[in-house]
């Protein structure tokens, strides 16, 4: 499953991330990214699929096959 696959069904998606550097949230156009324990949560109901979070992630986590 990837972010785009999940986006078709909406809801929210959680991506494993222990870095919590905040880069994805600061470029997010919709403000739909929050941090939980060891994961990034993306609210796909609000997500506008700009995919800026995918582009700037320093470790390439978001958009990869690494969903919780």
């Amino acid at each position, binding site marked *: 499953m990837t972010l785009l696959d999940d986006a078709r069904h909406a809801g929210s998606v959680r991506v494993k991330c222990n870095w919590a*550097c905040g880069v994805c949230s600061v470029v997010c156009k919709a403000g739909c990214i929050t941090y939980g324990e060891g994961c990034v949560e993306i609210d796909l109901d609000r997500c506008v699929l700009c995919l800026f979070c995918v582009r700037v992630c320093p470790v*390439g986590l978001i958009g990869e096959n690494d969903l919780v």
Partner: protein
Amino acid sequence: MKMTSCDFDVIVVGGGCAGLWAAACSADEGASTLLLEKASEVGDRVVCAEGVGARGLRSVIEPSSEWIAATIDGARLYAPDGKWYEIEQPGCGFVLRKDRFILGLAEIAAKRGVEIRTSAFGSLVSLADDHISIEACVDGCREQLRARALIAADGIRCEISRRAGILGSLQVNEIFSCAQDTVSGISVDTHFVEFHFGRRIAPGGYAWVFPKGRDRANVGVGIVFDTRQSDCASEYLARFKIERCPESSIERAIVGGVPSVSNPFEGYGRGIFAAGDAARVADPISGAGIVPALESGAIAGRAAAAYSRGRLSLRASEEAYRSELRHLWRDRTLRFAIRRIMMRASDSDLCRLLARSAEFFAGGNRLDGDPIGLVRFLIRAMPDVFRVVKHLVKV
């Protein structure tokens, strides 16, 4: 109008160098000041390359020898064509032990009367005309606190300012996406920093090697998103390390972002003053953030204290904050324009730019001197590349 009673004049959220210095300056102005840091100790979560110019740092605070991992006597610039240039200037910078530096700032802040609470997560609850409510979550216990003014020094996420509607999101090309490993077993000259340029190494940015001892260094890569690239910063770093230090071992790995914006003067409103990365004040060319964090912290601290103690109206304190920042970075538009040139420059243009810059510094100009002199020189030497900034500076 009857003023609501407050627990503190000023609350600072974030215990990095911007927050601590802001709190120290606020307390210095007579404001009762509380600082909330979410880590269990200040200096616990250092995310930084730790390099700083000596002149800039000394303009704010005289560094203690305990804070310094290496004194820097110059820089080596590596061009994409394999040539490199050495610029020697004894004592021009430091690589800090940032955790100790932050502890040092915390000691200064505490001596000036700042109350520091660690393991304390501060989040904005409400904004009223005469006070701000903050929820402080300390070890799972929630406490609501009121202050007249709030300093948001909560890093690049700037959650406070964004929640208050003061700042919006960044564009993808307004942020350096960075990955850095502190490594041991690397061969380094302990008194020289290295900068490596080129689209293959770090598109839109550069790779760095900052020595922290005889065989230790911070090795990192900062890139700016480019539609032609598909790799992330950590992949560029892994490739760079294979070339530069294949035998090294990782002590600590960090990732993060460095904001790079042309107008970092809008981080205020409704009694909130932003500082450091939360105000997006890092140098747009180099991404250097320590000195801008301290400077913006001092400005935010003074403005917040003046407002909270009733010496200035909210409007006047906001104007003071804005005008002091604008004065400090009056060449910001030019710096941002140069960053855009460097971001888009081809490898051959970067080679010429580095060769010309080395010529400029060989002529006795200082690395930590006024950058306008270098820009003037480059406009004359490379008019084809620098024509877009010609109108911003008198040649």
